[in-house]
């Protein structure tokens, strides 16, 4: 039996019933798209189109179109890659780790957060693929495919290859996890659908789901195991991403703190992106009863925690550089803070270390406007973190004659804009045609955590006992 806690605030407000959940979520899918939605899609398609030209030039003319030089051989491409992968991590954290911890507040945000994960990973994958220069041959360089060179296999000792496996496994498992959760909700839409097109499409997508007790039983087992698999997976993905740097001998990269530091940073930036998207979605789709201030506050608390871990990691890096006594290491960090890229370093410090601390104040933590602004600030800060780590470590080579600066070209920017357009186009399409809230899960917690439910249940039990006492008179 479910127990209602008198201490915890209700997760779903507005006295919603099970049927209300269906109507509130399905209405968005069933009704005609609004003007705002068309404008939003048009804007993101616009960005996509502008960026597409850059992508075309990058592929057609080669990566010489980027601002890379002999010294700084990695810059925006890998910055964007790490940034996007990091953003994706919050989705898995919400859907898998919070499931294992039985945190029920995840239920109304996990669907959209997982969608964000999948789209972010697609955007992230664009950059290594483009950086291959000839993406059509990329499969031979990235995957152990038999080839005519003997077969000359890929190098399994390389962190870059580990990354290929990590990212593709992460993408596949996230997609499967997300889709399994979507099947029951597609079935709900299918059973309500009036038009022949929507009935056929959602009928196909819902895989013939009928909600039988046996299938639900298996479904729950599958969800739990997938969560158990996704949890170490998500930690491994950013750990392996950090190995791309940590296993090299570049000062500023060669540290053992990188894996936990990258994972914390990933969750930090991911939650900021979830907040940015959720605040828009709840406003546009009027889902204030499902994504409450309580949810926003919870996510802000996670931002404080992970933001503080990131802050501690920055300071630890500085301390270790000094304590190690390695001259190159010390110079790398001094140069980050006071060298030609000082502005990037201090932007990163302000956005990632100082700004999340504002969430200690309850008023800011529960303010929608402040949360929205800070979520964007955090995302900017996390982009700069990767830029600082990558470019400032590379631009001062061991040989002073090789010292250089990095100047991004318009094509660096264009490729980034392409992925932003891609991400938002995917997200808006998802928000229109897919159920943005996991209806089945939210329905299952209404009794325990809905606002009106305890009284409802009491009245039901009383009528039930009355029936039991006088079955013949009431029913015959």
């Amino acid at each position, binding site marked *: 039996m479910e127990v209602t806690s008198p201490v915890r605030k209700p997760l779903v407000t507005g006295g919603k019933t099970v049927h209300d959940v269906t109507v509130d979520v399905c209405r968005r899918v069933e009704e005609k798209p609004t003007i705002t939605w068309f404008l939003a899609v048009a804007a993101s398609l616009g960005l996509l189109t502008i960026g597409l030209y850059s992508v075309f030039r990058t592929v057609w003319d080669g990566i010489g179109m980027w601002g890379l030089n002999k010294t700084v051989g990695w810059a925006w491409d890998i910055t964007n890659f790490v940034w996007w992968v990091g953003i994706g991590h919050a989705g898995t954290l919400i859907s898998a780790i919070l499931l294992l911890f039985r945190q029920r507040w995840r239920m109304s945000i996990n669907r959209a957060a997982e969608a964000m994960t999948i789209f972010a990973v697609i955007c992230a994958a664009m950059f290594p693929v483009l950086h291959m220069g000839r993406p059509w041959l990329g499969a031979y360089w990235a995957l152990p495919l038999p080839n005519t060179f003997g077969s000359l296999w890929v190098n399994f000792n390389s962190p870059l290859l580990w990354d290929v496996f990590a990212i593709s496994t992460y993408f596949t498992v996230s997609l499967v996890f997300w889709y399994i959760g979507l099947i*029951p909700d597609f079935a709900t839409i299918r059973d309500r659908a009036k038009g022949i097109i929507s009935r056929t499409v959602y009928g196909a997508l819902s895989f013939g789901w009928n909600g039988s007790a046996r299938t639900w039983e298996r479904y729950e087992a599958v969800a739990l195991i997938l969560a158990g698999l996704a949890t170490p997976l998500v930690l491994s993905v950013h750990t392996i991403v950090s190995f791309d740097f940590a296993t090299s001998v570049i000062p500023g990269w060669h540290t053992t703190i990188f894996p936990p530091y990258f994972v914390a940073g990933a969750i930090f930036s991911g939650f900021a992106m979830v907040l940015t998207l959720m605040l828009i979605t709840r406003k546009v789709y009027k889902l204030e009863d499902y994504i409450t201030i309580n949810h926003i506050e919870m996510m802000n608390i996670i931002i404080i925690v992970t933001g503080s871990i990131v802050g501690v990691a920055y300071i630890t890096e500085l301390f270790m550089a000094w304590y190690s006594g390695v001259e190159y290491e010390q110079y790398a960090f001094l140069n980050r803070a006071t060298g030609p890229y000082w502005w990037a370093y201090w932007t990163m410090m302000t956005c990632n270390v100082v700004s999340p601390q504002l969430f200690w104040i309850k008023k800011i933590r529960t303010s929608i406007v402040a949360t929205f602004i800070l979520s964007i600030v955090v995302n900017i800060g996390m982009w700069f973190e990767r830029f600082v780590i990558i470019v400032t470590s590379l631009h001062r080579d061991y040989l002073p004659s090789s010292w250089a600066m990095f100047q991004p070209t318009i094509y660096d920017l264009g490729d980034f804009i392409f992925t932003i357009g891609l991400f938002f186009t995917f997200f808006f399409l998802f928000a229109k045609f897919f159920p943005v809230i996991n209806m089945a899960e939210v*329905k299952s917690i209404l009794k325990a955590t809905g606002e009106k439910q305890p009284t409802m249940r009491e009245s039901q039990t009383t009528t039930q006992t009355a029936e039991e006492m006088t079955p013949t008179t009431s029913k015959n």
Partner: protein
Amino acid sequence: MVGVFDDDDVLLNAVTKVRESGIRIHECYTPFPVHGLGDALGYKRSKLPIAAFLFGILGTSLALLMQFYMMGIDWPMIIGGKDFTSIPTFFPVTFELTVLLSALGMVGTFMIISDLRPYGKAKIFDLRATDDKYIMAINLAKNSIDTAEIKQTLVNAGAIEVNEKQN
């Protein structure tokens, strides 16, 4: 015979009552997983975790075999003067493939045993089962008890509607 309930706890009690009166339930259909329903219906625990484990082991073995064959036997290469093969550097790929095969294998098994596939046709007794109603289906052909009595039992157990359907 299809009994429609409008509360999951009522359905849960009803399942116990109906089974106690000797009626065999075909299946229940609910909009969300109702905890304890499987037990009440007398279902055994799903063996899917075992499938996940076996597929995981398969992934581990295939990944290790692949890496040892490619790096150690088929084309050994000197990379940084290190050993041709080493478990630590093979570990990340092994881990990822373990997770991948475990997840895909388990979900594939789930799809097959639950008869879920694209364009799969759902066997539905009541369309509201995916919205807010809880359905109990009883196959009259498999029950020797009188139809009127089954109906009465369902109503007594709290069903708001009892319909007869040809399937």
